[in-house]
Every structure is written in structure tokens, then in C-alpha cells.
């Protein structure tokens, strides 16, 4: 993975010193609340219902063991001994003291970490596929481009005070595991007829209160022009994006107002002026960026033998077989498999891990996966390069630490925002709803029969929990001061992305598990053999679900 050189170290240290000064001036009353706000946001510091919240950047989700150990130490020393993996592949602390934040940032800097631009109206951490570099359906590894985007966007002098936050995601595979069309810019790596690498560029996606899927404004952007094109897009946005109303300030609103064609025309005109400038990705620059993501030292195996051993182990241990089926992902190198550690056993807020668990992940990564992990946008953790021969051993270890819940991709592997338990903007709590649903679906065999099913929960229309793009989406709403939940069906974050449709009137918290139960029953009754929920939904539509859920008791 990318390693800092002396310049990165120096810049990040300087940033910590700068923020220390800003915090001191704020605490001394020299910097107003209003002036301190964007400065602390651009250093990851939110102030929440109960305490400040610090969002730490994990560039495109990658971390190594020393970083995980440092995070564990920090949660012990400055927080309550746990951390939270976010839907943008970052890590969040929920209880730091404002005065401690400069020290936390200094400790992070020692292990090449920071909280730069994790919130605020600037270019945020770039996200990507958690299986980058190992997935069989990958065209090109997206991580070198993500790193180049990180460097281009970090402390960008022109784009630190945009109309609104700005998120970029890159996908290098045929299957979109990064939800790129839900981002301000989605970059899809493609190859043209001549086999040259380039990018399809989507703009104007975003969730929040006006969910919109990004539209392609360019089908093939040659590789060398990635950064100049991004610069052109953000420049057009910085000049023309609305600043009079924060709910209309995202680029999606501008793209919609101008129309994608006109927006594209303006981007192209701006890009013409800058495309051959300093941001050109020269062959040397690309080679340099790629050099940070070499293939690890894979061993070679007798494939037939390892497969046979796995089959035996799975045959004799049903729980292992389940885990193998749900929590591992095929690897492009024979003899290897990628493993997802689930952070979603029943009863734990999705994405939460304790300090000990962070250390356990560090340990597992070192023992089984070259000391590196990836955070997923579903809030789990991936060990990307595990030898098949060691899967059984890893499973046992993961089980001991509570990471082996075999539910990846299933209904109980939910995305869930912090909601009313932590967040002052919430209409309703989201974590207890997640838990109640997990309890209802505790029969693993049934859960597996249901197949891939994304259930996403947000506590308000800001949509941190991606409810619009869950196959089943749940949204907390406020009804005369009481917490209610609206249900949406048919969203998808995949390469066939779609936004969910509202089922009907909302439900009380107590009604939610039952409601989800009825929805799943309708699916099971209408399902063709092996059909996925989203496909059944697309075939039969909203109506059958509506009829069942709102049927009058007879």
C-alpha cells in the first residue's frame, strides 16, 4: 500500500501543528465558533449530540496492522475503547475531547494517518472496491488512481471552500462494489477497443434528501487526463454551484439544473484549457503510483489439494461451510481467497469494534494477509489475501473475536447510520431497529435461503445509512414528535444502480421487524428458484408488497 515519504510526513505534521494553533486560538476565544467550524470539520471534527466526533481518513479503505494498533491505543487513551467503521471506508471516534484532538492527530500522523478533509465542504476521502487488486472481474487496479486523487485533492488550495461536500469513488471492476453512482463523481475504469485504459465519468450522484444517481458525462477519458478532468469538473462546480441554500448546494442539483449535456459542455470547455497542463498523468507518474501496490509474495499451491482439504473441512463442520459460503470471496490467484470479517453480530451497532478487536484484526492481518486490511463501505473489514489452506484456522480465530458471523451480503449485514443514539440531526434511532430485525432473522439457514439482500437504515433524510440504495431501505421520520420508520423497496448500489420507492405510510419501531418479515414473505412466495430479492422486486413491482404489508387484519 502507499507509504509516506518525508514530504508526506512533513505536510501532515505541519497540518497537525496548524490545527493545534487553530484549536488553541478557538479555546482562547480568538477564533469564533463560526470561523472554527469549517477548520475543525476539515480536520475531521464534528460536534455531535453527546460529544465531539472525530472521523479519521482511511484512504480508499486500506490500513496496515500498525495503524490498527495505533487506533486501538487511541480509542483506549482518548475515547471509550471502541471505534466505528463508516460507509465511506473511514473510522470514527464518538467520544474524544476537543482539547485532545490535536494530540490524537499527532499520534495518527506517526503511523501515516490523518483526519484531513473527512468532513466539511471540500473533496473527501476517495473510496473504492474493497476487493481491489484481488477480484477476478477487475480490469485494472483502481488504487493507484485513488492515491493520485488523494494527493491531488489533499489541501487543494482552490477547492477547500466548495458549495458543499464532494465525494469521489473509483471502480476498476465489472461489478460496482463502490456505489460509484451515489457519488458526486463516480469513476469507472474501462478499456477501449485498442486495449487502452481510460475512465467513464459519472457526475451528480448523491443521496441525502434529494437522492439522484450520477449520469455519465464522458464515456472514455484517456488515462493521462484523469486529474485535469476532475479539476475541470470541480472548477465548474465551485463557480456555479448554489451557495444560497445548503440543501441545494450539492453538484447533483447543479447538474440537474443545467442538464447533464450543458453541464458536460461546460466541463469539456474548461478541460480543453487545462488538459495538457501540469496535472497530466505521465507514464512515469502512473508507474510511480502503481509501484505502491505490487502483488504480494503469493505462494503457489497444489490447487486440487487445497480445494479437497477445504471441501473436507466444510463437510465436517457446517458452521465453517456457512462462513466459507457467505464470508469469503474468490481470489484471482489460485490457492487464495478474500475474507470479510463481519462487524455485524446481532446486538452490536453495525460497524462498531472494540479496541481489543482492532488489535485482533491487526493480528489476523499479520498472520493471514500480509499485514493489510480494507474497510468496506458496508462497514466490514476485508483480509484480501488469505491462503485457502489457512481459512479454517482463520475462521476459528475470527470466531473467537466475534468476527465470524456468517452473514455477509445477507439481510442482517445491514448498513446503519449512528442515528438518534448519537446524532443530533436524527429523526429516529436506527441501531435498535437494526438489532430488532437481526433478532427476527436469527435462523441462519433461512437467512441464506433468502440470498443477497441489502437492508440499509438511516435515522433521517441525510441518508448516511444509504437507505435509498438498499434493496430494502428504512428511513427514520418524525411524526408529531414520535419516531416512525418509512420503508422503501428496490434500491440498488450495483452497476445497475437504482433508487428505492416508498412503500407507503410509515411504521412504529415495534412494527418494524414484523413489517420486514411480511416483505420477506412476499418475496419468498413470488420468488423463482434462486432468484434474488432485487430481481423478484423488479419483476413483480411494489404492489404485492404493499398489499401484504398494509392488509387489514381480518
Amino acid at each position: 500500500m502507499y507509504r509516506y515519504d518525508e514530504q508526506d510526513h512533513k505536510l501532515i505534521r505541519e497540518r497537525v501543528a496548524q490545527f493545534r494553533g487553530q484549536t488553541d486560538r478557538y479555546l482562547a476565544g480568538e477564533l469564533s465558533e463560526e470561523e472554527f467550524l469549517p477548520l475543525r470539520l476539515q480536520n475531521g471534527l464534528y460536534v455531535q449530540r453527546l460529544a465531539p466526533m472525530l472521523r479519521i481518513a482511511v484512504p480508499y479503505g486500506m490500513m496496515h496492522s500498525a495503524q490498527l494498533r495505533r487506533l486501538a491505543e487511541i480509542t483506549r487513551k482518548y475515547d471509550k475503547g471502541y471505534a466505528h467503521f463508516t460507509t465511506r471506508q473511514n473510522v470514527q471516534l464518538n467520544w474524544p475531547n476537543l482539547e485532545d484532538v490535536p494530540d490524537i492527530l499527532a499520534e495518527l500522523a506517526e503511523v501515516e494517518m490523518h483526519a484531513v478533509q473527512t468532513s466539511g465542504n471540500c473533496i473527501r476521502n476517495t473510496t473504492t472496491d474493497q476487493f481491489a487488486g484481488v477480484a477476478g472481474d477487475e480490469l485494472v487496479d483502481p488504487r493507484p488512481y485513488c492515491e493520485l486523487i488523494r494527493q491531488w485533492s489533499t489541501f487543494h488550495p482552490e477547492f477547500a471552500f466548495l458549495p458543499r461536500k464532494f465525494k469521489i469513488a473509483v471502480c476498476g471492476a465489472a461489478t460496482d462494489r463502490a456505489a460509484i453512482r451515489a457519488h458526486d463523481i463516480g469513476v469507472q475504469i474501462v478499456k477501449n477497443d485498442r486495449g487502452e485504459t481510460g475512465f467513464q465519468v459519472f457526475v451528480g450522484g448523491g443521496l441525502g434528501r434529494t437522492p439522484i444517481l450520477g449520469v455519465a458525462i464522458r464515456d472514455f477519458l484517456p488515462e493521462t487526463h484523469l486529474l485535469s478532468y476532475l479539476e475541470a469538473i470541480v472548477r465548474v462546480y465551485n463557480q456555479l454551484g448554489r451557495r444560497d441554500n445548503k440543501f441545494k448546494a450539492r453538484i447533483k442539483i447543479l447538474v440537474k439544473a443545467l442538464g447533464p449535456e450543458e453541464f458536460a459542455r461546460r466541463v469539456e470547455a474548461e478541460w480543453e484549457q487545462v488538459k495538457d497542463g501540469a496535472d497530466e498523468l505521465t507514464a512515469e507518474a502512473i508507474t510511480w503510483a502503481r509501484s505502491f501496490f505490487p502483488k504480494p509474495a503469493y505462494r503457489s499451491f497444489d490447487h486440487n489439494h487445497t480445494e479437497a482439504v477445504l471441501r473436507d473441512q466444510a463437510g465436517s463442520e457446517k458452521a465453517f461451510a456457512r462462513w466459507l459460503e457467505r464470508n469469503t470471496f474468490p481470489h484471482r490467484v489460485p490457492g487464495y481467497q478474500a475474507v470479510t470479517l463481519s462487524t455485524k453480530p446481532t446486538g452490536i451497532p453495525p460497524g462498531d469494534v472494540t479496541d481489543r478487536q482492532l488489535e485482533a484484526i491487526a493480528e489476523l492481518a499479520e498472520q493471514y494477509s500480509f499485514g493489510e486490511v480494507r474497510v468496506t463501505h458496508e462497514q466490514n473489514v476485508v483480509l484480501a489475501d488469505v491462503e485457502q489452506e489457512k481459512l479454517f484456522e482463520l475462521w476459528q480465530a475470527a470466531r473467537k473475536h466475534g468476527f465470524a458471523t456468517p452473514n455477509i451480503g445477507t439481510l442482517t449485514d445491514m448498513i446503519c447510520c449512528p442515528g438518534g443514539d448519537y446524532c443530533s440531526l436524527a429523526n429516529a434511532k436506527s441501531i435498535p431497529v437494526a438489532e430488532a430485525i437481526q433478532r427476527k432473522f436469527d435462523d441462519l439457514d433461512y437467512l441464506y435461503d433468502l440470498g443477497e439482500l441489502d437492508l440499509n437504515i438511516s435515522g433521517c433524510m441525510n441518508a448516511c445509512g444509504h437507505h435509498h440504495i438498499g434493496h430494502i431501505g428504512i428511513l427514520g421520520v418524525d411524526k408529531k414528535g414520535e419516531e416512525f420508520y418509512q420503508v422503501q423497496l428496490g434500491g440498488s448500489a450495483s452497476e445497475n444502480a437504482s433508487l428505492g420507492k416508498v412503500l407507503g405510510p410509515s411504521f412504529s419501531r415495534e412494527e418494524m421487524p414484523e413489517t420486514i418479515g411480511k416483505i420477506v414473505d412476499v418475496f419468498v412466495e413470488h420468488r423463482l428458484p434462486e432468484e434474488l430479492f432485487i430481481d423478484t422486486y423488479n419483476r413483480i413491482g411494489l404492489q404485492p408488497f404493499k398489499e401484504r404489508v398494509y392488509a387489514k387484519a381480518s
Partner: protein
Amino acid sequence: MPKPAKKPVGAQPDNPQQLILDGVVVDNTWRLLPLGGEEEITANNLAAGKVILPLSIWLELREALQARKDEIGVWLDSDETADLIGDFAQELPLIATHFPAFTDGRAFTAGRLLRQRYGFNGELRAVGNFIRDQLTYLNRCGFNAFAYQGEQSLQGLLDSMQDFSDSYQAAVDQPLPIFRRRALV
């Protein structure tokens, strides 16, 4: 050349007595005329000495003021883009860009474009409600003058310019982004 849109008059920039110019605190020798003053500004009644005109007025008077062009600057409001000045930038001694609020970051783009696209070599001045913590970025976008109207000391502002010793991207102060410099070695 595109025309700026007509609009209601919003917050206007101050014209402080002192400012930072090229890294030192100096007296402000320019007079900035806000929009919406009592009297209509014409070529004839325009005060003597160095004046900074609102863009819309400058566009009207530019020809008439040719003889005084070395003492006529122009200021852009945040919704006025650099292309409204365009190549005329090269004949201007001073361009100011206004921050109605420090969170309005349009001036960063205007500054960069004036310097890098339109060849502006004169004094590029930030005016209005920008804050100390934006100076490093402003500097990188080509600003060399800061008519700060807040409460911090100008010396404190000057100190903040030393916050960073290097930068990742190309901008006005740095021809090559870090990845290209690194790839060279």
C-alpha cells in the same frame, strides 16, 4: 465578452487602512469604491488617485478611463467569474476579489484563472470576509495582497503563511504536482 448579471447590491467589502502586500504590512494606497454608493460613478466625477471599481462600472468606463489606466483597479464580486475580465487582466494594475463570507470559495478559482489563464501580473488582492486560515490557500491561488478586515493582527496573518513548506498540487506557486516531481527522481 460575456456581461455580468445585474443583481441586488449585497454586502460590500471594506477598504482597511493597512494590508499585507508581498509579505509585509503596508499602508493601503488604493481606494475601493463599493457598489450602490450615493452618487453614480462616472469618468468625470471619479475621485483622483488610485481607485478600485466594481466590475460592472469598470466595464462601462474602461474606454473612457484609458488615460488613467495605471491607477484604475477592479474588484470582482464572488458571483462574477474571471472570464468577465478575461485578457483585459493584462492591462490592469490591480484586481481584487470579494469574499462576502469566508465560506464562499469562488474567489480561489477566480484568482487562479486570472493568474494562470489570463496572464494577470498585477496586485491580486483578497477583500471582504476571508479569514487568517485561508491565507496559505489564497497565496497558492496567486493572491499577493490581503486587505483583511477581521480582528486578528496582521502579524498573525503573516505567520500563518509559513504553515506549510510544500504542497501536493500544481498551482500558481508550484508548476508541478508532487506526484510528477516524485516520479522524476
